[in-house]
């Protein structure tokens, strides 16, 4: 870990006591953050030079009770060339999370896409509507309960394929 990254790491953990840091096998910095802290952490990082929001997306883990959804941010400091991955776990009973569109204009469509596919509601977003799917769709298709193919199909048997 570079000096810069470890300094930032220390001050994040100091300012936000509920944040946990994991350095994974691939050398990426992962931060697990409560949703009440996420806006504060992103703002703090932006002031420390992380001015490039690389990516924002979601994941669905239906088997993990109370943390079924995860919102993942990749945020990059272009001067020091350090990239952090921020993760926020959400329960399926409360999929609200504060928006970061006030900090990054580019978060607008990324958050809309995450809403569209996972149903995560970004509080404070200026226009949280579907983006890639049709407007009158009544479900969020990237959730794991929606199989890719119609499960009632009988003409295709792939029992022996894969695990």
């Amino acid at each position, binding site marked *: 870990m570079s000096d810069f990254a470890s300094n930032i790491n220390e001050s994040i953990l100091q300012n936000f006591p509920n944040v946990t840091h994991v350095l994974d096998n691939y050398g990426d910095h992962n931060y697990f953050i409560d949703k009440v802290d996420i806006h504060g952490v992103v703002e703090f990082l932006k002031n420390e030079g992380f001015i490039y929001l*690389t990516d924002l997306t979601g994941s669905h883990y239906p088997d993990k009770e109370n943390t079924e959804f995860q919102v993942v941010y990749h945020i990059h400091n272009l001067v020091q060339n350090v990239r952090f991955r921020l993760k926020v776990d959400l329960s399926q009973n409360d999929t609200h999370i504060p928006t970061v569109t006030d900090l990054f204009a*580019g978060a607008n*469509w990324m958050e809309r896409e995450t809403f569209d596919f996972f149903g995560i509601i970004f509080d404070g977003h200026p226009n949280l509507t579907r983006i890639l799917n*049709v407007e009158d769709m009544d479900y969020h298709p990237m959730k794991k309960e929606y199989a890719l193919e119609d499960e009632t199909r009988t003409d295709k048997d792939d029992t022996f*394929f*894969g695990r």
Partner: protein
Amino acid sequence: MSDLDLQNKKVAAFASTETIDGEIATLNLGPTHPATHGIFQNVLKVDGERILSAEQTVGYIHRAFEKLAERRPYNQITPITDRLNYCSSPINNMGWHMTVEKLIGAEMPKRVDYMRVIVMELARIADHLVCNSVIGVDTGALTGFTYMFQEREKIYDIYEEICGARLTTNVGRIGGFDRDFNKEFITKLRAFIKEFPKKFDEFGSMLERNRIFMDRTIGAGPISAERALSYSFAGPNLRAAGVDYDVRVMKPYSSYQDFDFEIPVGNDGDTYDRFIVRQREIKESLKIIEQALENMPQGAYHADIPSFYLPPKEEVYSSMEALIYHFKIIMGETPIPQGEVYHSVEGGNGELGYYLVSDGGRTPYRLHFRRPCFIYYQAYPEMITGSMLSDAILTMSSMNVIAGELDA
């Protein structure tokens, strides 16, 4: 200040303050309009020819790639990536291979890296050629387009020698290439390197310092570096605004650190700067290809990872081990480690990222594509508000918005 400058200033001041006929009309630009080069809809509010606001609709060719990827074994996802930015498919393919290689921890031989660099830089040239010659078309210069598309054809002929396909290439495998470069490939590539610069310079001299073209493009659809960063712009569009962010330099992959090349940077982030940045990048890409070809290391054209890389067909019929590996790879029975990686490559339009989560199953648990087009196209209304309708067309073509990458 010359008379002409003064006159231009007066016109600009008039256009930004006066209403033209006071009547606001709604205009549908797209979804299918020849000038949008793809399926994009923009509902414009216009006063005369001046744009007051724009509202975008995207998703016309959404094909649910991320959902599809959750059901396909890793090697079957490569054809999906072809269809993201279909002007530079090889870069997408290579990016995906490298993401999986990062997940499984495979090291590539130097030769594979260099071969990949050649194919990726050819793709970048093809991508930029399409974009720049189309800017020419949109300003009324059709001739350059016809000549540059002949050159693009030659690049496609070169692709054909390495993978048999032209547009959706599906080139390479996880772990390297399926075959070595053949003689015909080298001959065609050397001929291209020799002949292309001359024709390309001719194209450049037609537009780069052309008074009409410059008047038409300078100041059209500008964006400041600050706003571009806030919108997470990437690639030539970000560099045209003056930020020298290039993944090839910041996080070198596939041995890009071995090559000597420059990152062209613009100033104003307008159509002209985007055009010039792409022009210069084509030259730099040629330089990289030459270096890679000259210094091509000897060795294998694939890594030694039998559980991921298909054995030669002859061995499958004669050796037990090869047959087992072949069967396991085809059936998606290869053990994949658990974990998650983010890997990005410098695509034709900038940082193309792959966020991959594996739970150890035969398919990715979750795969997200960071598609530069999708992210920067949202700045389009901000860039064209207050400008003329014809500038909006130019702005879109110079941003190189590719529908496949936008909608995934």
